[in-house]
């Protein structure tokens, strides 16, 4: 079995949570593997991050270089090319940095590439069978990947349960000297922090969350009316923001807000994992969608197969009726 590496993202001296999920994925590929972590960066933050992995990685490769202080995928790729043995299997978290780094790394390593892996279904001498999803999670697929010249896999956040972080510390190997000077055609400038919106959706107990099923901008009013009647706020999924029907500050998901309501009404939302990633604290999830195969029904507590454009106004009327009765 080829040597298995996990590229570990880190920030302010602390390894990302995905580090421990990647460790679990390594062990699923090969229970006998000695997972090796690779961290790139610079200075005290990098050294600190190397020591936040507990015993999850018996060996930790450190690549320190001033130009890697901020993770630029092109520079990181060039650094990894220098130190990774050929035929290595490399795991990277499937988030914005992994999407930037991994496909090009697989080309330069001349190895197979599979993105957004949910599970490892089987491993043979020179092949691995992995699970992916397609079509917004409506179907899953087994993909066979020839690992004879190595592989780069990006792993979906949350798909592998983190291993218990055992006390201890991996042996840190300093690989910085093997890298040499690094240059890139892309230069990091700065981070622009998201603007706060008119409504803070993170503060509400109930969210009426709308997706593509709302169909057009004028229909957003249907959700706003229901939310007002219930004392809730309206949030949304990505397609609603892409279409400019609601502001970005209303978006729930990995590229939007993380919310922790008590009740989440998913209205016309298909349930892409990027959206679900923004829903924390296990709220009571009620899904209304006219597509009975929508993936949201796999994760919801209660589901209703109906057209939200008809269902929501009737629900609003009923809420108003109840409130009127209650105040009389």
């Amino acid at each position: 079995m080829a040597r298995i590496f996990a590229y570990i993202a880190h920030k302010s001296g602390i390894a990302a949570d995905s580090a421990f999920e990647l460790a679990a994925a390594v062990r699923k590929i090969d229970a006998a593997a000695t997972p090796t972590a690779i961290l790139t960066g610079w200075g005290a933050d990098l050294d600190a991050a190397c020591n936040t992995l507990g015993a999850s990685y018996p060996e930790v490769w450190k690549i320190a270089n001033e130009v890697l202080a901020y993770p630029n995928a092109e520079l990181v790729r060039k650094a990894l090319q220098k130190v990774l043995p050929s035929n290595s299997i490399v795991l990277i978290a499937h988030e914005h940095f992994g999407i930037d780094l991994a496909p090009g790394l697989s080309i330069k390593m001349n190895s197979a590439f599979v993105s957004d892996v949910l599970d490892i279904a089987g491993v043979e001498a020179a092949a691995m069978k992995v699970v992916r999803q397609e079509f917004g999670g409506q179907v899953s697929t087994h993909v066979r990947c020839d690992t004879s010249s190595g592989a780069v896999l990006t792993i979906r956040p949350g798909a592998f349960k983190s291993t218990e972080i055992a006390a201890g510390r991996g042996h840190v190997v300093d690989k910085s000297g093997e890298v040499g000077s690094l240059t890139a055609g892309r230069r990091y400038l700065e981070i622009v922090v998201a603007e706060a919106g008119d409504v803070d959706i993170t503060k509400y107990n109930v969210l009426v969350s709308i997706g593509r099923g709302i169909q057009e901008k004028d229909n957003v009013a249907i959700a706003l009316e229901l939310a007002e009647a219930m004392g809730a706020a309206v949030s949304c999924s990505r397609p609603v923001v892409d279409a400019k029907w609601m502001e970005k500050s209303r978006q729930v998901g990995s590229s939007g807000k993380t919310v922790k309501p008590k009740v989440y009404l998913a209205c016309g939302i298909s349930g892409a994992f990027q959206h679900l990633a923004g829903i924390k604290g296990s709220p009571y999830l009620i899904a209304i969608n006219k597509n009975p195969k929508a993936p949201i029904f796999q994760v919801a507590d209660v589901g209703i197969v109906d057209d939200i454009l008809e269902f929501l106004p009737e629900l609003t009327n009923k809420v108003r009726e109840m409130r009127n009765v209650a105040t009389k």
Partner: protein
Amino acid sequence: MEILVCVRRVPDTSENEIALNSAGNDIERDELVYSINEPDNYAVEEALQIVAKVGGNVMVATVGGEEDEEVLRREMAMGANHGVLIIDEAFSGSDGRGIATILKAFVQKGHYDLILTGVQAEDGGAQIGGMLAALLDYPFASLVNSIEVLDSQKLKVSREIEGGNKELNEIDLPCVLSIQTGINEPRYVGMRGIRQVASVPIPTFSAAELGIAVSTIGEAAAKVKHVDYFVPSLGKGAEILHGSREENINKVLELVAAKGGLK
């Protein structure tokens, strides 16, 4: 600026319920509604807006079959100057690396300052742009949600990162960018526009015409292959309410109240 946009025709998940075929080796493709891959459409719009500001041409290209011509024509109706169909039986079964290899050969036939792809296809791996850039040794940025042309040598691009934040970068041309949805508002394409480009010839390129070694593409070269498809079972699944709409509404209100929602 000469811009190439790589596009794909895909089953439209907002219009279709995706199901498995009886053999379980593919999705059921009969009667599927196909359309342009959504992020690709944003990429074409972005290219058109850049050209409107700084001049140049927009070329749309796809690797596929004859049926894929319709998406090229759609994007030409939007305003793309040229469409090209890269078509060869030898391409069939290519994995991401194979497709990127084909596109690289096509890129090297022309002269492009900027190459755009959509960030991901419904059945894809968010991989072609990054692979193509690496094959060409061009700089690359993924998840791009704004582009500003600084001069003829470089762009300022922002990438979508976690929490709605943006990462700003300067990137040298020529480069490859994968475009995220929401970067712009793609213009509407009417039937009239599509009719106007209906008879415009769409040139094709084969493996031989692009000088691609057949051993580097297609199923034989693919390191990654689909084995089968199956319906995912995540979690226990929702309890589906089968009552009348009125009964369901009452049940929803009862549940919301019970969970501390309605106060």
